[in-house]
Structures are given as structure tokens and as C-alpha cells.
């Protein structure tokens, strides 16, 4: 849209106020809307980051009057918003813009009702026709909704005129074929820059800080390659099991649930080349190059196991609490082959990362909840302090760890002389912690991502070709697993760091997993 710049906006860029908009949430009666979306919108309103006129239209099957929907949203916001309880005055202003439309997602009449309602709202509240459609429904509904939105004339694909954007929740497909089909459906009615595939991990401050850390500091990039880095470990550990989500997890498994999206995004941000600018296409181009540089797995399924280890937890104890075996969870088959743990050894075939393995592991019912990226540097080339380093410490490298959650921060481990008459060395951490350095409460990931979408900034969203590239890789593993005999599950006890085979995956290379 060619627009004359607003002269009063100069110097206020930091305010990042988007244009008046209506956000339509499909799946408005769902958990995500209550726990995350509406509380995030309220927090944005409280921080004056929403446009002066902003509307929310919930769409779901049940028939509910606007007022009842508002009450339900207020109750949810009171329970889940970052800043609560809600301020009544602010809620009144915010909720004046909340509406509800009922209908099934398959029924074209739903979209006609929605269209009529949106036109009324635009007229009454001067929204100017700008819309964001948020797809917070089961993934099977995504193609249906996108198609119906197009058919009802609710999408303006033209760059001129009011903006239309669509946010699609993960998972975007369950394999390459379904992701390609969904992309095709989406591109039938939307431009790619209107499509915002959300991965809430990318809205976390620490994840964004990976780029700042790497590319705003001159000291790291010269070291950020195979000459100085020995290997990289990425860990996404959850201490909880599936906790009642067994039915969902049986369809997904941790490879699809964690690795295809979150972990591959961390991998890309850790390994990508510097983008020419911090803007959507430049960043996403570089991320895509990483995914395309991943060395293909062997074609023989048996050989795949040399690079990928899967596991499933049995009964055990986490934090002193008993955890039932995955197969004993409701909705889980007694002979389930679904993995709750996966460890991978990846190689990136480019100049920067030649010879540097990336070890990824994700699991449920592990000893603690932690997400981190650990860069293990090569050891000093000549050990002049051999006697000063005791036992296993002699093998400890310098490690730069980027903690994404909890206790977000960055720490660098290096050796220091222990005060005293002898030359004794010990590793010491040099730490930066968000909580210590910045008193400000960081916004929720959804706040940041919704705001970016309202502003039309797709930098922290996943592009269609990225999604397909990651599924291409995941599909190879799934196909290999399908071809192999049933694994001997469960193969790790809840509350341990995963199966023995995962240890061997890294130990065979002369390395060990961190105990974060």
C-alpha cells in the first residue's frame, strides 16, 4: 500500500503501533484462545501497543451471545494474563471490541455471517477493513478454513487496500506431503507475505537474542565455525510426561512435536550465515540455507539408527514424584511405538560447519525442564597445564551455553587458576542472566508474535519453503522407523536423561551429553 508517511510517527517507531485491525480467531472456544491469545491481546492493549481501534471476533461452533463470550474472555484473562487482575476501565475499552460469530468451519454460511458482521464492525468502529485471521483449530481444519475464507471474499490478496493476514498455528502439516498440500491451499488464496506460520518459541526473548548475540557482537563470529567449535548440543528437555495429552501425542511423537519446528529453528538460528539485514526475507533465506545444507541420512533404515536414537519413557520418578509409563497414559496404546525421546546427530555440509556435528535431543519425563543451545569449543591445542587439571576436568572444553528456558541467559565456561600456591585450575562460569540485568518483565512470546503480525513483520515466523525443507528431513526418519522392527520400548525410566543408546550416539564420537 503506497502511503504518505505520518510525520508525527517520527521518533515513535519504538512504539510500533499497528493500523486499526480486527482479529478473527477460529477456534475461539479452545484452550489456546483462553490461555494465550486473548490474554496476550489484553497485555498488548495494556502496554498501549494495540492500535487505537482493535476488535476481536471469536468464531466457534457453539452459539454464544457477544456478552457471554466477553465474560468468558475476561475470566480467562484474569486467570492467565501476564498482568492481572485485569483493570476494569481498560477491560471495558478492550472488550467493547470483542464479538462472537458461531458456525461450523465447513459451512459456507458461517463465512457469509462472518463477512456481514465484519462489515458492520468496520463501519461502527472505523477499522478500515484490516484483518488478521488466527487459525487456532485442529490442523485438519486449516485447509478448509483457508479455502472458505477465499471463497467468501474475505481475503484481499492485492497489496493495495486493507491488509489481510492469516496466522496458522503449528503443526503445519504432519509430513512433507500434507505440508505441501497445505502450502498449496494457502498460496491459492494468500500471498506468502500474508501467511504467518507461528512457532511460539521464536517469540521468546532468548531465541531472538541468539541473533543479537551472534550478529551484534564482533567477537563471536570469527570463532563461530569449525575451526574453533568442536560440536554443538541442542537440548529441549521437559520434566513432565504427556499428562493427559496421550491421544494427541500418539499422532505426533516428539520428532514431529519438537524437532521439526522448535529444534530445527534453534539449529537454523545457531548455524545460519549473517543475514544482510534483520528483516523477514533476509533472515528466512539464511535459515532455509541451513536446512538445505543438512547432510541427508543414509538410505538404509538400519543405518539411520547410527544418527537417530528414539526412546519412550517407562515408569519412574521426576523430582521425587512418581510418573507413570507413557504406555499407561490415557489414550495411549499399550504397545505404542511412539517416541517420547529422540536424539540426533546432524551434519551441515557447508564451509562454516564442515566437520562440526550438531547433537540434538528432545524428550519428555527427563530430570528437569530445560531448553538450551551449548556451543562446545575446541580445547587448547597444547596442554601446558596437564598436571593442574584434575581427572575428568582435563577433558572439559570451553562451553558457551544459551539458556532459552528457564532462567534465561548466557554463560561461558572457562578455566581459572584456583587461588593458592599451586597451579590448580577449575572451570568457572561467566554468566549473563536476563533476570539480573533487565528488571523489565519480558513480554509473552504470543504478545511479541501477534504484534509482529499486526505490523506485517514476518521475521519471526516460518516461511513455507522452510517448513517443507524441515519436513523433507523428518520424513526420512519417519520412513526409516516405519521400515524397522518395533523398538524395544520403554527404554528409559522417567526422570533419567534418556536411553543408553543416546549416550552411545555421542560417546562413540568421544563426546558426552551435557547435564544442563
Amino acid at each position, binding site marked *: 500500500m503506497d502511503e504518505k508517511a505520518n510525520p508525527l510517527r517520527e521518533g515513535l517507531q519504538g512504539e510500533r503501533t499497528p493500523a486499526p485491525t480486527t482479529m478473527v480467531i477460529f477456534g475461539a472456544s479452545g484452550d489456546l484462545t483462553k490461555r494465550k491469545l486473548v490474554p496476550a491481546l489484553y497485555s498488548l492493549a495494556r502496554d498501549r501497543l494495540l492500535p*487505537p*481501534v482493535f476488535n476481536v471476533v471469536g468464531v466457534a461452533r457453539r452459539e454464544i451471545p457477544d456478552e457471554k463470550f466477553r465474560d468468558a474472555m475476561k475470566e480467562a484473562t484474569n486467570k492467565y494474563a501476564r498482568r492481572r487482575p485485569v483493570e476494569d476501565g481498560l477491560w471495558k*475499552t478492550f472488550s467493547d471490541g470483542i464479538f462472537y460469530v458461531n458456525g461450523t468451519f465447513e459451512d459456507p454460511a458461517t463465512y457469509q455471517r462472518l463477512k456481514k458482521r465484519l462489515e458492520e464492525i468496520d463501519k461502527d*468502529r472505523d477499522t*478500515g477493513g484490516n484483518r488478521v485471521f488466527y487459525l487456532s483449530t485442529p490442523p485438519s481444519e486449516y485447509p478448509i478454513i483457508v479455502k472458505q475464507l477465499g471463497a467468501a471474499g474475505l481475503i484481499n490478496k492485492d497489496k493495495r487496500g486493507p491488509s489481510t493476514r492469516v496466522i496458522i498455528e503449528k503443526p503445519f502439516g504432519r509430513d512433507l506431503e500434507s505440508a505441501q498440500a497445505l502450502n498449496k491451499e494457502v498460496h491459492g488464496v494468500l500471498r506468502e507475505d500474508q501467511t504467518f506460520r507461528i512457532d511460539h518459541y521464536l517469540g521468546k526473548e532468548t531465541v531472538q537474542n541468539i541473533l543479537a548475540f551472534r550478529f551484534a557482537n564482533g567477537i563471536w563470529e570469527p570463532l563461530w565455525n569449525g575451526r574453533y567449535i568442536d560440536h554443538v548440543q541442542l537440548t529441549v528437555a521437559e520434566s513432565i510426561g504427556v499428562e493427559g495429552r496421550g491421544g494427541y501425542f500418539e499422532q505426533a511423537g516428539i520428532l514431529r512435536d519438537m524437532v521439526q519446528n522448535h529444534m530445527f529453528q534453534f539449529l537454523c538460528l545457531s548455524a545460519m550465515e549473517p543475514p544482510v539485514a534483520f528483516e523477514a526475507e533476509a533472515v528466512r533465506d539464511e535459515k532455509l540455507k541451513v536446512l538445505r545444507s543438512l547432510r541427508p541420512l543414509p538410505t538404509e533404515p538400519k543405518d539411520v539408527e547410527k544418527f537417530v536414537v528414539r526412546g519412550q519413557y517407562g515408569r519412574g520418578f521426576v523430582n521425587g514424584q512418581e510418573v507413570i509409563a507413557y504406555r499407561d497414559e490415557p489414550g495411549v496404546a499399550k504397545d505404542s511405538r511412539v517416541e517420547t525421546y529422540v536424539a540426533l546427530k546432524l551434519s551441515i555440509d557447508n564451509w562454516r560447519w564442515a566437520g562440526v556435528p550438531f547433537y540434538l535431543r528432545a524428550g519428555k519425563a527427563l530430570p528437569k525442564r530445560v531448553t538450551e543451545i551449548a556451543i562446545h569449543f575446541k580445547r587448547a591445542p597444547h596442554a601446558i597445564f596437564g598436571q593442574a587439571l584434575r581427572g575428568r576436568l582435563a577433558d572439559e572444553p570451553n562451553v558457551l551455553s544459551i539458556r532459552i528456558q528457564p532462567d534465561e541467559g548466557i554463560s561461558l565456561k572457562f578455566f581459572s587458576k584456583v587461588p593458592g600456591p599451586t597451579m590448580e585450575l577449575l572451570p568457572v562460569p561467566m554468566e549473563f542472566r536476563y533476570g539480573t540485568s533487565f*528488571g*523489565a518483565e519480558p513480554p509473552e512470546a504470543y504478545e511479541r508474535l501477534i504484534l509482529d503480525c499486526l505490523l506485517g513483520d514476518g521475521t519471526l515466523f516460518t516461511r513455507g519453503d522452510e517448513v517443507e525443507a524441515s519436513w523433507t528431513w523428518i520424513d526420512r526418519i519417519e520412513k526409516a522407523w516405519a521400515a524397522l522392527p518395533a523398538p524395544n520400548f520403554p527404554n528409559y525410566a522417567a526422570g533419567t536423561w534418556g536411553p543408553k543408546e543416546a549416550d552411545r550416539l555421542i560417546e562413540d564420537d568421544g563426546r558426552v551429553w551435557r547435564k544442563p
Partner: protein
Amino acid sequence: MTPPDDTDRLQVFERGDAIEVSPARIEAELAALWRRAAEARPGQIPNPVTRACLWNLVVRVHGKDDFTRAKKVIDDLAQRIPARTIVMRTEPDQPEGLRAWVEANWRRREGGGPASGSDEVTLWAAGKAVERVPSLVRSLLVSDAPTAMFWTTSLPSPGPIVAELIHQADRLIVDTRKLGDERGLGDLCALGLREPELQLADLSWLGISPLRGMCAALFDAPRDPEVLERLDRVRVVSNIKGTQARGLLALGWLMSRLGWSETARVGEEQGARAWKAKRRDGKPVALELVTDPGGDHGVAGLELHVGADVWSLQRDTSIHVKGPDMPPRSQPARSHSDAELLASALGSRGRDTVFRDALACAAALVQS
């Protein structure tokens, strides 16, 4: 601030209270106290403490009341931004003396224990000892952290002592509504011209940021901001305690963004001042600043006129927004504490280049 017994020093430090130390031993005393705070007590495991510093913040206070107010602001600020704060209280007319106190500003972990803390040093100098303060401050600045000078109720007065302090600063923070005289806007503007590399931040300017954002939003797409070029009258209602700097800066902001020039005062009655200026197209625009003693909101109202069309922001407990062809609406209004504004001044908003332009225009209004 009585000097505690040596045996109590650690407890006093851990409470966050001040301990008097020799001015020559400030760093050494702080280092010793931090070390002791981290040491294990008999029968206890070592207590991890983090000493954090993102800024050197040098605070200049005048008199006891100002000192008490500033200390409160610093305590609040410490919960938002860890900084080594150096409070300077100088009394050149008193008999010579130089004293120093140190304390920690703790950010407590949930449950009570200290999680992280930052240093606060208070310097009191009287008589000729005032001349020793800049060198003391220089020695106390944490290397590699930027330095901000916060003058609470005045502007840095000319002279070698202040010049030396300013020379060490990356950012000067003031609050123009507390200057006592609106001509201080001109003085600050002149200081900015003398020190072009110094970043200027003003708590009053930051206080009107939300209003500026809301005003700008009235002309965001899809609306045509071209209408701003045809404004023929602007009215600001200001009702803050102190100088009407916020109202003047609001007018200065519009003038600088919309390229208005040739400002001339056309009238002044009790509580109301009027100016005329020339728009970019050469046509006149009327400016009005009304002082309403009824509240303490800063800018309580802003009206932009183009003929019969009026865009307005009126503040009471909410901000009521009206404009032609748009439904009226209310947005929440929130007051910001000085500590919040100071934290903002230490962030990216503290280097807002638009401020210098607005300040120059506001100073021109005062001088015209």
C-alpha cells in the same frame, strides 16, 4: 546514617541500608562487603549473590528534601535497572567536609533471599571539598558501562566542576517541569548545542510519550496524514505541578514535526498563552497553551483543528479520543512514576533525537 558497629556491617549491607565509609576506601569497602555477603556462614552453604551494573548513574541533588525524594526514586529504579548509582549532594556554602556512604540495592528473590544487587554510593561534600567530587566520581565509574547524569531539579550550572562531570557522561537526564522556570528549556537547548554528542533525556518529554503516540495514531493509515499540513489551530491544556514544560514540549513537538516557523506570541491572559506561527505552506496556525490548575496529569487536553474538524485527546481518569468520521473512544490513562520515567530515560527512548527538535521549538515559544 550512623556508622554501624563493625560486627553489624554485613547485616546492615544485606538489609540494603547505608554504611559510612572513608571516601578514599569506597571501592575497597564495597568489594569487601560483596565478598562477605557471598561467603558461607557457619553451618550454611555459600550464598550466591550477583552484583550487577548496566549503567553508571550519577545523581545530583540539592538539599535534604530533594535528597530524600531522589533516594526513593533510586530505590524504585534499582528494581528495574541495575546501576551503580552515585548520589552527589554538594553544599559549597557550608564548612568544608567530605563524607561517603555505601549501600546495596537488592532485587529480592521470591521468598525473600537476595538474588542480585547493585551499588549505591552517596557523596556529601561541603565548602572547598566540592571541588574534589568530580575526581571521586571519575574513580567510581564502572568501566565499560555507560554513564548517565541525572540532575533532579536543576540544570548543570556552568563551571569547571560541572563541565568535568558532563564530560564523563554519555547521557544527561533532567526533568524540565522541575526546573522552576520555563526559561530552563532555553538553557537546556543551549547546553545541547554546546554538547552535541551528549544525549539529552527529559522525564517530562518521556511523560508525554503515550500522548504523542495516541495523537500520532489518529493520523495513521488508512487515514491521510496530509490533513496535518492544514492544521489551523492547536490547543493544549496543561495542568501539571511545576513548570508547564510538558504542554510546551507538546506544542514544540507538533511545531517541529510539521515544520512550523516564525513563532510570535500574540497574547497572554491569566492561565492562557497564545502564539501564531507559519505553516510550511505559508499560512498561519494558532497555538494556545491553557494552564488548568485542576489536576496533575501533565497534558490534560490536546486539540487539533482544521476548520470545523477537530481531533481531540482529553484526559481525566481515561483518555477520551474524538475525531471527525470516527467513533469516540476511551483509552486507559496511567500515570508514570519518576522511577518508571527514569528507567525509560536509561533505555532507547533516552536518546530520542526528536526531543532536541521539540525542545528548540518549545524554548522558542517561551522566548517569543
